[in-house]
């Protein structure tokens, strides 16, 4: 108990802050911050496994998040029958050709010795393959994108409940991570960072521009929800009575019947959106707790010890007979898969998929700030980092506004400096993140909750 005191204290302060937001701003805001904190926590768990456990830099978090989001679309949206009938065959045939091409290249690479001829043949197969695939897929893609472009214009998904996409998103992200890991994990740390950053940009470019699959920048809106809809809740008997019960003291003060009804309606509308957010919080909390238990177990298992050994001294671990390459690949896939889950959760909560919104600053660098501020190598730290940083990211604007008002109190309201500063309040969050990161890296390089490994 005693040794965990700082963890408990840090988390209680964090919860206290969110509750304060609930009391002073509104419970709606507090809960939406809390939900996104939970999603960020899942991402930081993923990044922490890679960086904290194994020392792998993955600057491609954005790409895995987007793939998770794509999974949510492909699982939950109803299939567009018409699109499948006009272009489905071409697409499927192209996919088959791509697989055949990859297999052929692999076969040649495996079974023939390295030579000039082999390189030429591989290049020829790839170039020919791309040309043929373009010829086959182009009419299909055009036909699909022509089907009711304002509403669909893509193949749609499977029409399953969106919850399944959390698992599928993990598989998507893990699959991509496997491919990236296979080719890029041999690179030095900073090269790996740059390579993953750029690969994630390629992933985003594909998601943005392959309209037949993702609708691209036209976005997919109105995804199914795992939680009830506010409108339905507002008409449900038990929910109204629940709200009435909760606010009975407040309602009893009002004597006028019509006024009481009006207040109740207002409360029901507010309550319904809080209730929906609570449903999401519950779902997300379950995911976070499951992941936390699993990662904690892994951290203290022989496997976790091996990972730390590899992280701290690769050569020594190698000499002890540990397969460094294999373990790196494994942990890269695992961490990325967790990020994929977070991506699917994010889209589930938003109810929409907007490929244009995936930007490296928000989905890669911010997550890294979270991991480093929270404490890399310590799951509790990483999760706390997710909470703290996201909380600040959202609350930076009000805090910034307050600070601006405080420092420029002597100035006239129309003074150009004050007006300019108030206009630029949204950018104080970047400043806060940057300064926070620099201060933590300088004075507490292991983060708020540093890694603590007990040797029994």
């Amino acid at each position: 108990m005693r040794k965990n005191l700082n963890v408990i204290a840090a988390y209680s302060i964090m919860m206290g802050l969110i509750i304060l937001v609930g009391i002073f701003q509104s419970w709606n805001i507090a809960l939406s911050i809390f939900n996104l904190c939970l999603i960020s926590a899942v991402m930081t768990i993923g990044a922490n496994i890679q960086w904290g456990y194994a020392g792998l830099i993955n600057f491609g978090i954005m790409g895995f998040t987007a793939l998770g989001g794509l999974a949510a679309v492909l699982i939950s949206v109803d299939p567009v029958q018409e699109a499948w009938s006009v272009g489905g065959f071409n697409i499927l045939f192209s996919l088959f050709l791509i697989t055949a091409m990859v297999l052929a290249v692999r076969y040649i690479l495996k079974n023939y010795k390295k030579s000039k001829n082999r390189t030429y043949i591989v290049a020829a197969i790839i170039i020919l393959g791309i040309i043929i695939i373009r010829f086959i897929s182009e009419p299909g893609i055009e036909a699909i994108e022509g089907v009711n472009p304002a509403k669909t214009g893509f193949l749609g998904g499977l029409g399953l409940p969106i919850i399944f996409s959390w698992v599928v998103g993990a598989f998507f992200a893990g699959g991509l991570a496997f491919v990236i890991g296979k080719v890029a994990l041999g690179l030095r740390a900073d090269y790996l960072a740059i390579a993953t950053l750029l690969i994630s940009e390629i992933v985003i470019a594909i998601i943005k521009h392959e309209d037949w699959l993702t609708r691209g920048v036209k976005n997919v809106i109105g995804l199914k929800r795992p939680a009830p809809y506010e409108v339905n809740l507002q008409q449900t008997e038990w929910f109204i009575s629940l709200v009435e019960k909760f606010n009975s003291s407040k309602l009893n003060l009002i004597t006028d019947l019509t006024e009481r009804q009006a207040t109740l309606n207002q409360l029901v509308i507010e309550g319904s959106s809080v209730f929906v957010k609570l449903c999401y919080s519950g779902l997300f909390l379950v995911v976070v707790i499951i992941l936390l238990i699993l990662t904690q177990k892994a951290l203290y298992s022989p496997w976790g010890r091996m990972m730390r050994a590899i992280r701290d001294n690769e050569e020594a671990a190698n000499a002890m007979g540990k397969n460094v390459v294999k373990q790196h690949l494994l942990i890269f896939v695992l961490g990325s898969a967790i990020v994929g889950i977070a991506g699917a959760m994010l889209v589930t909560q938003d109810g929409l998929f907007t490929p244009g919104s995936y930007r490296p600053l928000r989905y890669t660098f911010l997550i890294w700030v979270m991991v480093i501020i929270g404490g890399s190598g310590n799951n509790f730290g990483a999760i706390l980092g997710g909470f703290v940083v996201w909380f600040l990211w959202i609350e930076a604007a009000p805090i910034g506004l307050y600070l601006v008002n405080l420092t420029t109190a002597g100035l006239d309201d129309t003074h150009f400096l004050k007006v300019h500063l108030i206009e630029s309040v949204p950018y104080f969050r970047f400043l806060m993140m940057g300064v926070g990161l620099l201060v933590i890296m300088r004075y507490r390089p292991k983060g708020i909750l540093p890694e603590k490994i007990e040797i029994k």
Partner: protein
Amino acid sequence: MDFVNAIILLLNYIFVPALAYGSQLALGAIFVTLIYGILRFANFATGDMMSFGTMFVILFTFYFQSIGISFGVLPTALLAIPFGIIFMVGYMLIIDKLVFKYYRINKSPPVQLAMVSIGVMFVTQAVVRIIIGPSDRRFFDGEKFLIKAGEFKEMTGLNEGLAIKSTQVITIIVTLILVSTLFWFLNKTKTGKSMRAYSDNEDLALLSGIDPKKIVMITWVIAGILATIGGALYGLDKSFKPFTYFNNMLPIFAAAIVGGIGNPFGAFLGGYVIAFSEILLTYAYRKFFMYVLPESMEPDGLIQLLSTDYKFAVSFSILVIVLLYRPSGIFKGKVL
């Protein structure tokens, strides 16, 4: 005649724009490579540092315009660049003193410095957005075209026009002057040689009495000059928007690594490799083939290898391929 038309077409749409864009990338890439070679970390704040310098150039340009100073047919920004450089170098030295110095003295691993540079990236981004705002700004003035497409057609009687923007010419000329001065400095002067020695083998350089403080300071000064000029030229040619500059970091990194990181000449060429491949692979060659091939063989499609949406993806793919097959870059050679 058709053949000449085809050549002009390629010049107009591929060669000239790629040369200008490549020059801008090249300056950024040399900046990255210098920091990497001498200070030994991947600077993720590259794009934002460039926007910081450009911001001061813009502010001075606006100031000059408001008091009525202009540079004739040339853009006023050229006059403002030296002032921008002063502020930029000052900022970089302050950042170095407050942030990077500590890690350098402690001999932190490069990864940690890269993380720190992310912090600097956030701060710089905030400062730029707070001072000048996130919106798109154009600060070009003076004569816009050196040769207009219409004039060129009249002059030569060809079907295809060749338009050369003055910013493109300025970019190429300034880049050439700057880069040749830099190479002269690195190869011929004593300070330049000691910089190369420091980058090659730090301990040996220290043993032979090279002052590391001086080397680091000069590196930041050169980096500041390169970043400001590169950023200002990009902003003149296209427009200034902090977010675009942040994104430009990616092709710049690609150029630096493709050329062999730590090798300024490689970075210089890397910029053009990236620029040309981006434009060559995403250009629609239909018109070109219409000129070159006989009428019966005219193509119906656009003959575009990749859609322009994948412009960035091209450079990244090149980078990934280079990283995988030749991690030391295309132009290996000595380090710095």
